[in-house]
């Protein structure tokens, strides 16, 4: 390309654009600061703030409860990581069963429909109770009896139903022309799903999927209902002995710290796909 240098007019325009950009940054900063100041004043100015601060934001209690929470939170993380893998697999299988068209698979489809309808209707905490107390009570030889195990299974059962519906909505959002062009290439319906439709569907449902996983991370706390000594249980235990609920706030902070990186990572991933696939359109 021939060498080109911006005209004076263009330089002036760039200066203007910079100026406008600076202005937006300024507005954003001022608005943010104002919002936070108002919020802080509103809360700390309330009549009961002193006692709330003592019960929920006590530095000493936070420090004292931290080691126990730190140990217990690993149980939540373990439960979440194990459950997530199984949920992704089961949910995808259920979603695939629901969109299948083969007459051979009709019973499977029926099971999938009933499963999602029934399981989604049951509060997760009831599933935790049912499995964690009911399964060991059956006294079947060979089955584990640990509450941790059965609470995890309850989460898997419950969330598979939700996530399956997320996957299904993703699959159905792929335009029918994609099915048509894949089938026109001679791909079987299964191959269409596997190579063409599902890859597109999964990308679309990443944000709602993340939603469900953040929710799952928090619902690992339901295991406390079955007596699993996880972080929320530990915090509540501390509160009951010391009449101070600061540890619950500490646990909340732990959960936030766990979910934020995941959210940023998925944002980055979807932005990358968008840039790659829509490069010519925008």
């Amino acid at each position, binding site marked *: 390309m021939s060498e080109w240098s911006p005209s004076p007019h263009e330089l002036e*325009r760039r200066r*203007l654009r910079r100026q406008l950009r600076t202005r937006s940054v300024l507005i954003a900063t001022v608005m943010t600061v104002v919002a936070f100041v108002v919020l802080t004043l509103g809360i700390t100015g309330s009549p009961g703030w002193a006692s709330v601060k003592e019960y929920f934001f006590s530095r000493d209690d936070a420090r004292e409860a931290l080691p126990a929470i730190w140990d217990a939170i690993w149980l939540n993380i373990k439960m979440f990581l194990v459950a997530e893998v199984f949920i992704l697999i089961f949910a995808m299988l259920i979603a695939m069963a629901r969109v299948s068209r083969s007459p051979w698979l009709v019973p499977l489809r029926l099971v999938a429909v009933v499963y999602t309808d029934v399981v989604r209707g049951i509060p997760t905490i009831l599933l935790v109770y049912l499995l964690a107390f009911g399964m060991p009570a059956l006294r079947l030889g060979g089955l584990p009896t640990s509450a941790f195990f059965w609470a995890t299974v309850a989460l898997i059962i419950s969330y598979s139903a939700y996530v399956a519906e997320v996957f299904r909505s993703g699959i159905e959002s792929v335009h029918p022309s994609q099915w048509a062009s894949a089938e026109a290439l001679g791909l079987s319906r299964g191959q269409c799903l596997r190579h063409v439709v599902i890859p597109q569907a999964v990308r679309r449902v990443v944000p709602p999927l993340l939603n469900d996983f953040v929710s799952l991370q928090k619902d690992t706390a339901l295991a406390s209902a079955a007596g699993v000594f996880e972080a929320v249980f530990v915090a509540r235990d501390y509160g009951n002995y010391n009449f101070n609920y600061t540890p619950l706030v500490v646990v909340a902070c732990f959960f936030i710290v766990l979910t934020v990186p995941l959210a940023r990572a998925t944002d980055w991933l979807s932005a990358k796909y968008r840039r790659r696939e829509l490069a010519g359109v925008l």
Partner: protein
Amino acid sequence: MSELLTVSNLRKSYGERVVLDDVSLTVQQHDVICLIGSSGSGKSTLLRCLNLLEDIDDGIITFDGREISDPRVDAREVRSRIGMVFQAYNLFPHLSVLDNCTLAPRRVHGVRRADAEARALSLLEKFGLADHDAQHPDRLSGGQQQRAALVRALCTSPTLLLLDEITAALDPELVGEVLAIVRAEAEAGMTMVIATHEMAFARDVATSVCFLDQGRILEQGPPAEIFSNPREERTREFLRRVLPD
């Protein structure tokens, strides 16, 4: 005759790739400017720059006597007076044809629903879509969709119409019905800038034809001159390839 749109020394690049290089163009009121040239020559990008859909890297665009390439200009105000039709129709699939056509008049121009619908219906009828106003776009043929997209652009009574290869996705039989509308608009005095591969149409309708090559306007003139006696060898080569015999 007065100048409606002027482009001077326009430059647009995506990173290292220069898409438009030193492009200058003047559009008088009632002009029909046809942009021709092979794919990737910059026709579409030029139209998108005119509509402020792209930030330019140098040069000046004026519209109605005012510089619109100034960052302080309200792009929405400019666009509300310019109509644009795209190659892929870009109708909104969740709205009926009529709602597609009345969206901008009602939401941007503040026209009352009844008035907006009356105007849309009369235009739809004029362009042979009278029975399709309640249907959703995906129910229509490509030609019908593109005619609906034209009606959508015309509903706001724009001062300038930008058409970006609007027949490129249509089969030859349907091209005619879309071009008939454009021709009618040209005869009614609409000012248009048209990127097109339809050489016969350009020859008939254009007041001026620009041949773009690698982001530059290589040659510009009345259609008779460009098509029968092009000055540049590159233009001759292009026309030899796209014109029969």
